[in-house]
């Protein structure tokens, strides 16, 4: 006969180690070596752009007719020179500042603006949704490059105008993603529970919707960084971006294209920089998406 009660035999289970959402995202990311590597590449690129004045061996804008189109490694020009004899490495470092800014800033602005419109449209539905989303559809109707060229063409070149152009182009897709995510959240029972406790729409959006919409929107936004870099480069390539002699990867690619037969490797460098940066951003956002796809 045993009358030992179950609880005495079995000590209460130790509390399960509990991680917050972001901690569990990081925990997954920690073992994703591809993402970590790409993240390192991005950090490297960002740092080199930030510290360009210290890192650049020469003035990126000083041309030298005598040293035009040097090959890689020739006469101390580590990456050669361009068609005006300017040091490629210095221009690449300085150009990274513009290109990265063009990749990140428009996406940030567009995330805020598009996200806001998307959440409003998704949460309130009905006529508000119709108004916002149909307006977005108008922009969606054009291919993004065409739209960018059209806006940029009418605004003119320059850093600020290019920023505005890219932001306008990126708002509709972000708005769409935020709207879809929001309307999914809106139909969830916990939103109804919030309303049942008397919460206003604003309070529910702030406390319940944003926190849930954030991860899909951020993941999508991170994929747009590479798109934005490429678009910005394209605009500069077409002469619609920053004005020369400012270094910009797209602009460098554009001016070097005539020299492709003379110095194919040097001419390709800005393109390779764009490629590496955009792939790195893409892979990081991919990894981020997987890591954020935590159950619950």
């Amino acid at each position, binding site marked *: 006969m045993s009358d030992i009660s179950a609880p005495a035999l079995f000590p209460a289970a130790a*509390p*399960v180690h*509990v991680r*917050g*959402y972001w901690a569990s995202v990081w925990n997954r990311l920690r073992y994703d070596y591809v993402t970590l590597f790409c993240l390192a590449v991005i950090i490297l690129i960002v740092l080199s752009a930030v510290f360009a004045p210290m890192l650049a061996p020469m003035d990126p804008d000083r041309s030298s007719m005598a040293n035009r189109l040097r090959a890689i490694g020739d006469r101390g020009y580590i990456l050669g020179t361009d068609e005006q004899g300017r040091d490629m490495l210095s221009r690449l470092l300085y150009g990274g500042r513009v290109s990265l800014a063009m990749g990140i800033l428009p996406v940030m602005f567009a995330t805020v603006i598009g996200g806001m419109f998307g959440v409003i449209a998704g949460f309130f539905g009905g006529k508000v949704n119709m108004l916002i989303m149909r307006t977005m559809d108008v922009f969606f109707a054009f291919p993004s490059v065409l739209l960018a060229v059209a806006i940029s063409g009418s605004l003119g070149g320059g850093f600020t105008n290019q920023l505005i152009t890219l932001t306008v182009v990126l708002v509709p897709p972000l708005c769409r993603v935020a709207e879809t995510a929001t309307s999914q959240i809106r*139909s*969830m*029972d*916990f939103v*109804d*529970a*919030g*309303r*049942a*406790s*008397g*919460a*206003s729409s604003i*309070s529910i959006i702030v*406390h*319940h919707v944003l*926190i*849930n919409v954030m991860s899909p929107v951020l993941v999508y936004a991170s994929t747009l960084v590479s798109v934005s870099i490429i678009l910005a480069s394209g605009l500069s390539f077409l002469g619609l971006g920053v004005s020369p002699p400012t270094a910009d990867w797209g602009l460098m690619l554009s001016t070097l294209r005539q020299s492709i037969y003379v110095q194919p490797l040097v001419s390709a460098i800005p393109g390779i920089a764009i490629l590496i940066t955009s792939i790195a951003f893409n892979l990081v956002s991919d990894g981020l998406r997987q890591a954020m796809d*935590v*159950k*619950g």
Partner: protein
Amino acid sequence: MTDHLETAAEPTADPRDRGGPAQPMLIVDKIRKYFPIKAGLLNRTVAQVKAVDDISFYVLKGETLGVVGESGCGKSTLARLLMHLVEKDEGTMILDGDPVGEVRGVGLDALRRSMQMVFQDSYSSLNPRLPIEQSIAYGPKVQGATRRRAREQARDLLQRVGLKPQLFSQRYPHELSGGQKQRVNIARALALDPRLLILDEAVSALDKSVEAQVLNLLGDLKQQLNLTYIFISHDLHVVRYISDRVLVMYLGQVVEIGPVDAIYEDPKHPYTQALLECRLSMDPAERVETAPLSGDPPNPVNPPSGCRFHTRCPFAEDVCTATAPRLGNVLDFDSRQHLAACHMVHAGSGHSRAPRSVAAPSPGDVQ
């Protein structure tokens, strides 16, 4: 929350009581909700889903009213109508003597403090990105409690529903089992100290052993906190266990209402009879060989004419197709009243099985 423990023993002593013990907690009179189905370029209404169609009932204080019906019968819409999560088309609600949403009645805020809802356990009932303590504390914060007070209250409630606050308060919903999530759901509903709890399929998604735990918890809470329940479920076994009175819904209408024993032992409506026959025995020797009802429940978009059940009813006659049977005077406030909306129980309805004389001793016979 704890200050109600002392008052729990004597139900009439509830300081929140306004209308007195005899005043029903909630009276619902001819509430109606049709959802338009829009189509075409001009977004015109092409049809209507008659989700809740002129439903009347009342719930007495301290009582549990069970609401049963199959999917699509409108029971969930009814819950959301009562909570004012869905705007009603027509009808009135009287909460403890005061009309809801009228100038001289109770406002929505007061309604929400008095009436709360427990949702079906599913992935959507708790915010996946909030620790459960914050999910519970949200309601009190909305109603003006300080952050600290709301947090304390949330921890008290967790304790009350059987979850140790020090272990659970910071957990996220995906770290909880189904039963634990449902306990959190209940705690959240209790956070505003309500008097009436609407439980919409609150135990349906749970394993049986957990279901029993949660039902026991609901029973304890009802006593301790002097609660009234509207318990919505498709599970007839559970409804029988928990309810004092039962309301049977079919396609947006009440087909039968009465005390739980009368409904289960002497069902009047053929739909209720069939539903009861669909309960499965636990003994393999008592297998059902032919299904009591054939076909799926019809679509609430265009419900059948006359009695909505006539398409599946074995006793259907011409009169059933032609005229809709009436339930009778539901708002009679006699809790022993047993009514059925079927021509067979109403004398002189024209159905061949209807009682001949008006004096037929049928409890459902009101007219």
